[in-house]
Structure formats: C-alpha cells, structure tokens
C-alpha cells in the first residue's frame, strides 16, 4: 500500500486529503498518477499540472522516482509560506 497525500490548492481541487493505492511492484510517480486517475477520472486535469511538486517519504523528488509499498508520497503545488 502507498499512502498519497495532497496539499494546498490541489487538495481542494481533488476534494481529497489522501488516497491509498495497492501496488505489487515499484512504480514511478508518473505511473502512480495514472493509477490515481484510473480510480478518479476527474482528477486528470489536476494531477498532470506541470507545476506540481512531489515528495517521497518527505523528500522532494522527480516524477521518475520509483516508489514501493509502504512509501509516503505527497503531491502539492509550489509552496507559499512565510
């Protein structure tokens, strides 16, 4: 199981804070997004926004990153704190 978290405007657009995905082998973030869209077709226009950032186990990484069961993946727009 992979736990996927959403933050900021993305969370609001998806109307979802987190989603669990069952996978049987490592997949890339790009593949993970496609699995999410299969489950929720309306998410397509939000998940492929090029500005979106990715963190795996709380470290920033690219869409090429492989993730496995047990990983925590977070998708979010550019940060705007401070």
């Amino acid at each position, binding site marked *: 199981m992979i736990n996927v978290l959403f*933050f900021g405007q993305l969370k609001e657009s998806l109307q979802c804070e987190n989603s669990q995905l069952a996978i049987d082998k490592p997949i890339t973030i790009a593949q993970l997004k496609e699995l999410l869209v299969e489950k929720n077709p309306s998410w397509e226009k939000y998940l492929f926004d090029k500005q979106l950032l990715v963190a795996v186990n*709380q470290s920033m990484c690219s869409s090429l990153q492989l993730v496995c069961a047990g990983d925590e993946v*977070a998708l*979010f727009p550019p*940060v*705007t*704190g*401070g």
Partner: protein
Amino acid sequence: MSVIIAHKDFDHTQQYNYLSEENSNDGAVVTFTGLVREFSSGDNVTALELEHYPGMTQSLLDDIITQAKKRWQLGRVRIYHRIGYLPIGEQIVFVGVTSKHRAEAFSAAEFIMDFLKNQATFWKKEHFSGSSRWVQAKQSDKAALTKWQKTSSTESQ
C-alpha cells in the same frame, strides 16, 4: 528548540529573549517578523489561512538552519511559523538569529526567510470579504535565492 510550528500566536519578547538571554558571546540579534497585511494585488485581504505538511516542514526548516550555520558563524536561531486562520495584522512568521557580527546576522536571517519562502511546505490562502483564493508562488521569491549563489566568496568577511 529552534523550530516551532503552531497555531498559537507567538510573543515577540519571548522569542527575542530566547535569542539574547545569557548569550554574552553574540553582539548582534536580527529578527524578521511577517504580518498579515491588508492589501494583496489591490484587493482587501481579511485573513490568511495557512496549512502545511507536518513532519516534512519541520525537517526542511531544520535543514535551512543547518545550511545557514554552514555559511555563517551563528549563535542561536529561532524559526516560529504559524498555521491556521490568521486575520489581518496577525503575526505569521518569526525568524531570529544571533551572531558575533551584524553582517552575518543580517545575511543569515534574510537567507533563512528566502529559503523558507521557496522550500518550506506551507500553503497560504487569502480570504477576502465573500471570497478566497490560494496564493500563487511568486517569481520575486524565486529570484531572491540567486543572491545566495553569487555572494558565497564575499559573505564571510
């Protein structure tokens, strides 16, 4: 504890005392405080709402402090960042730094704010009367980072 993330407001004095008390090594204390201001792109803001990615924010801020301590000789550092619903005039963020020398304290405080703005996992929503909108990342914040690339050879004087 150097980094605090909380709903609760902070007392400026308490933060300043944390930096300055029983600290006879450091002659310079620089603080930055960010407040909710009334206008944004011409509209009247009534409040900000801040959310963050718990855990990740903490370690990103710890890392920014570590980077700052590598570049400058710093004594104490404090980052206090609030989350939740913050009406006009409320304090959002405090960054405080002590050093033997004022130039290092100024640089480190600004460095921490510049990296916090660009890297720390906070998201901000502006509330207006009757509407709201997510704040978009600013090009000027990204541009602010470039000064920390250029000055690496001269900053430590």
